[in-house]
């Protein structure tokens, strides 16, 4: 059937199974929005306060559901406002489609009003991108973009569509959803080598990242852990893959990882790394990283093998398949000494906990854990509160921890939480702080408009805590521009947006506020006053190694 390019965009999205899009209208996407108006019974559009919020929402939607997140923005500033959101998705391998309008082809290259080369700008932060030059290519281009975004290691793909292409008419017919590019199967030689190394392990440590969640290989990891009789640790991106209370799970390792997890990794003789990229935040000084261990690196992306850390063997290919072949090839182990060693580390970790009467971040997280159900996505912003959430929040199911790992995007949380809540249809918690919340708090408007069941726990310490922590530890307490003398009343602010606000400064207040907010099914901001000198501990100093681990800052 013949139809306008703008309609082809919407029809192709629907054909590909898209039910929800996030975005913001503007001059060069007005035709696409006209078709959204026409098709509003088949596709939901969520209007955000700012394009960045829409991009983070699409990202959070994708992380929480495993589906593709779609965001639409106009040309020029609309498109550039997506950039941080696209880069966030790229660094965390999130499948996302960003559709931007552009000026008509005749006006391209003339510095026309709101014209920007968004394909040029997003080249290094997308998996791939398109400038649609011919109406004939439009629907296939969107199909191909989906295929690229979802195949192999996922990532964001941007499609820039000039206005005259949106207005041109062309034939469209519904096609079946294209199959993904097949994942490579691991080579038998790499599997055999991996099996030999794993069979030799007496102190095995399985180190998992976002790739495990992407591959839905969580159960295989548990099987592997049982068979090698070892422990599991994760990167920030691997959080929620393994139930927090699983006996072999030690939690996140790395710069702010759990003590027992980081120490066990450094004591291991074999590290089975699955779907991780060994980021500098996870390894510290690479020269001193896990020096006693042989590393088996299993990843879908061949380019990750030997990129950051040299491994003994790289198993390249489908993660589930690789794990299944390895599990069936290795023998059942019993590592009694290793259990004793890890039990001692865990006991040591427990001894670091200090008792105080004030409301501390770990208490906040434990109260949240006790009240939230297993299906609740927990989104975070970036900074100290993010690390506390990573350390103390408990999870039972994968895709429940929504956090910007690679890019570390302050301001990610509001959009991402809205995306996660609308995608899952479930009550959602955002853990944020006065610093991060300040970056995109305008999305509170979006949460109110769509009555999103979102409990916003705002850890308010009046400072940019993570930078302040570095300034305290490494910059002689010279607090350059990290003290926020803002006098923002977050309760009144929430009310001004049409949400509810509650201030809490002790455990009981917080518990009753959180219960009330969580059950209310609408957006509530809980302003949670904490001390400005709460530290995220343990800490491996940047570029340091496990010997430099800081577990206590008394006297510093």
């Amino acid at each position: 059937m013949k139809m306008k390019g703008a309609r082809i965009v919407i029809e192709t999205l629907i054909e590909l199974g898209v039910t929800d899009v996030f975005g913001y209208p503007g001059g060069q996407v007005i035709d696409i929005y006209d078709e959204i108006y026409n098709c509003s019974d088949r596709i939901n559009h969520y209007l955000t306060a700012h394009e960045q919020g829409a991009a983070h929402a699409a990202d959070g939607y994708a992380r929480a559901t495993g589906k593709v997140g779609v965001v639409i923005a106009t040309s020029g500033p609309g498109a550039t406002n997506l950039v941080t959101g696209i880069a966030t998705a790229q660094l965390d391998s999130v499948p996302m489609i960003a559709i931007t309008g552009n000026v008509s082809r005749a006006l391209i290259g003339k510095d026309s009003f709101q014209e920007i080369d968004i394909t040029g700008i997003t080249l290094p932060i997308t998996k791939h991108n398109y400038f649609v030059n011919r109406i004939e290519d439009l629907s296939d281009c969107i199909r191909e973009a989906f295929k690229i975004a979802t195949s192999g290691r996922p990532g964001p793909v941007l499609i820039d569509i000039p206005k005259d292409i949106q207005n041109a008419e062309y034939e469209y017919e519904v096609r079946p959803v294209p199959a993904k590019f097949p994942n490579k199967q691991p080579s038998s030689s790499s599997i055999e080598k991996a099996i030999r190394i794993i069979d030799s392990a007496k102190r095995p440590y399985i180190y998992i990242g976002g790739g495990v969640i992407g591959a839905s290989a969580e159960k295989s990891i548990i099987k592997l852990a049982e068979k090698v009789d070892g422990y599991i640790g994760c990167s920030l991106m691997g959080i929620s893959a393994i139930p927090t209370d699983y006996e072999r799970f030690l939690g996140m390792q790395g710069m702010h990882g759990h003590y027992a997890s980081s120490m066990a990794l450094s004591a291991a003789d074999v590290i089975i790394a699955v779907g991780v990229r060994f980021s500098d935040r996870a390894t510290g000084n690479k020269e001193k990283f896990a020096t006693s261990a042989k590393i088996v690196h299993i990843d879908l992306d061949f380019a990750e093998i030997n990129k950051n850390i040299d491994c003994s063997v790289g198993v390249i290919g489908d993660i589930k398949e690789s794990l299944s072949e390895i599990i069936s090839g290795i023998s059942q182990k019993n590592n009694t000494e290793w259990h004793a060693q890890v039990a001692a580390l865990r006991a040591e970790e427990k001894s670091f906990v200090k008792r105080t009467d004030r409301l501390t971040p770990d208490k906040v997280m434990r109260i949240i854990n006790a009240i939230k159900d297993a299906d609740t996505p927990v989104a975070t912003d970036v900074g100290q509160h993010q690390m506390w959430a990573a350390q103390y929040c408990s999870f039972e199911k994968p895709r429940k921890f929504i956090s910007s790992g690679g890019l570390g995007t302050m301001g990610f949380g509001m959009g991402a939480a809205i995306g996660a809540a609308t995608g899952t249809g479930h009550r959602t918690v955002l853990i944020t702080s006065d610093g991060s919340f300040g970056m995109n708090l305008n999305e509170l408007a979006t949460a109110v408009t769509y009555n999103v069941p979102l409990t916003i726990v705002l850890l308010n310490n009046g400072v940019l805590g993570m930078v302040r922590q570095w300034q305290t530890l490494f910059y002689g307490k010279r607090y350059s521009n990290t003290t926020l003398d803002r006098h923002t009343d977050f309760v009144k602010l929430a009310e001004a947006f049409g949400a509810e606000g509650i201030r809490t400064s002790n455990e009981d207040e917080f518990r009753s506020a959180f219960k009330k907010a969580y059950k209310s099914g609408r957006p509530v901001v809980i302003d949670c006053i904490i001390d400005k000198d709460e530290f995220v501990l343990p800490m491996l100093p940047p570029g340091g190694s496990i010997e430099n681990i800081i577990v206590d800052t008394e006297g510093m």
Partner: protein
Amino acid sequence: MSKFILAVYVDNKFGVLTRVTSMFTRRGFNIDTLTVGETESPEYSRITLSMSGDGYARAQMINQLRKLYNVKKVELLDEESSIHRELMLIKVKNSSKFRQDIMTAVDVFRSKIIDYSTDAMCIEITGEPSKINAFIEILKPFGIIEMCRTGIVALERGSGSILTNDQETE
């Protein structure tokens, strides 16, 4: 650190060269030469690039190139199993004092004078980069006005081709 040459088959589409070079910037690769042109098949262009680096840099370059959607094939062309050529146009001052010396150099290096005027000569030379470097050294004392090098193009020896060879990423 050693020099190496990569042959890269890419889709012959608008913007593909930018995608490749943008990746170099993003990953911090510094290349020595890059040439791009049509191939036997209109669908593809062939990029030949040379760069210096250790084994790690070489592996990273190959892997990151292979990740680009428009890159179809990447092959390392080592010195023994491939032939390398570069073309240079070089303009030198023409004077009665040096004319004969320049002519002799042109002859010995089997190059060609392609433009001649009373005060300048333009010479075309093809060969391995080392030969071209040597030729420049010879001409320097006579006064080089300007020069232009194409960068290296290279093909594998024998009957194999980059598109038919197996690609193993491990």
